[in-house]
């Protein structure tokens, strides 16, 4: 469960998925552990897919001062 207790990053999630699959492929996990690992793996796959989606919605180009201004205005930047 390392790397998943706190907010995961894409790379930690990918590493954890690989570790889970390696563990499952080893055939050493019992039924309960297998089901828990699969459940955790599904969550991580969904997380990674969300991360990939987040950088695939369309390139958003901002100038630095625009970003700063919008951050200072406290609202989310919009696409230019």
């Amino acid at each position, binding site marked *: 469960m390392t790397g998943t207790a706190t907010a995961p*990053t*894409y*790379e930690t999630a*990918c590493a954890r*998925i*690989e570790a*889970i*699959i390696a563990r*499952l*492929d080893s055939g050493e*996990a019992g*039924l309960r552990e*297998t*089901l828990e*690992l*699969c459940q955790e*793996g*599904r969550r991580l*796959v969904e997380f*990674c*897919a969300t*991360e*990939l989606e*987040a*950088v*695939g*919605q*369309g*390139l*958003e*180009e*901002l*100038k*630095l001062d625009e*970003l*700063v201004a919008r*951050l200072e205005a406290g609202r989310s*930047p919009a696409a230019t």
Partner: protein
Amino acid sequence: MSELGDRPAGIPGSELTGPWPVGDYAARLRARLREFTHVQVFGEVFGFKAGRAKVWFELRDSGGALPCSMWRREWDALGIEELAEGTQVVAAGGCDYYAGSRTSSPAFSFSVTDVRVAGEGDLLAQLERLRRALHAEGLCEPQKRLPRPALPKTIGVVTGETGKARDDVLAGLRRRGWAGRLVWAFAPVQDRHAAPAITRALQDLAACEEVEVVIVARGGGSLADLFAFCDETLCRTVAMLRVPVVSSVGHHTDRTLLDDVAAVACSTPTHAAEAAVPVQRDEAYAALGAAAVRLERQSRRAIVERARALARLSRAPAHHVARHRTRLHQHLRELRASARRGVAEGERAAGERAAALGRKAQAAELGRTRGAARARADAAALGRGGATALERRRRDLDRLAVALAAHDPQQTLERGYALVEDAAGEPVTTVAVAAAQPALTLRLRDGRVRVRPDPAVISEEP
């Protein structure tokens, strides 16, 4: 002097001294050259080579050239990494000559004992000093220890607004399939205002929490153009930033101090963009899909395999019973078949025996009939034979009776003869026996008479 004994004759008519062994002459030449005054010369460096013991280069200018060499330890002590082509240097030293030998070539060189880089070389020397200082202070390491996100959502880029580097960065990001948020921090990249502007842009980008990685990109240029990226303040600022910086400044042959302190140094802005986004999005999607499939497969397999095992276990007793039932049924069928075969066999054998008995009964009846007939015939024959035999026997008996009567002593007695017997009734046939008997019995036809022999009249007939 070593080969005086083998010295050949000189050239006839020549007024010059000698001939001298060339080794002697080379040694004296070396001694003479070393007597030359040591001086400083300056020129442009070409063909710099560093060997294990020495470094070599040529100093050239429009008027001529001088081959130079320097002991490697003295060169290393200067702290100059390498002399680029054309670098203006001042070299101190004096003439030297390697006399060579039978197996090595002679060589003249200006033996350098000190070097000072001049002109652009001065700039490089300054940079090298600053580089060493930054390394010594450990400022080249912090950026490299920063975690770099594999899939940043927001990337900051510091570059010239009109430069080609901007398009290269976009091309690199497109190649990764990355389409997140890109924050441009445009700054001059080649004048004296460049370094402070770049430093400020980097600080501003790092101040935005959303920015996860920063690219500093600039195309190629002269060393003077790239000097802004060797600014000490800029380098120290980058070393302390919280976000990793990917640098791509100049051509791959140039290495600015920013490249040293940055987390990653790339040869082109396109590569810098790819380094900022290590994940190729399409490939990552495919890998993620494959991982999801494997997870589902493992999950399904874990359940299905165990369910199958349970089903096997639960079916085992029923299978056991069914197997035994089948075996019993089989035995029952075999028993029935065997019984049917036995009965049929018995019936067949009984039939055969009945048939045999019938045949025997018929034969017995036939025998009985024949026996009866034969008995009847035998009885008839016996009857016939009996009568005949009886008659015959009667006749024989009569004949025998006649014969017997003929031999009967009584018949003889009837004819007047007497039978003499002793006291025991045995016939007495001799005189001697009769003489010995005290008394004799005479059997006559009608009875017995006891008599006593008279020894006086007893005599034997001759």
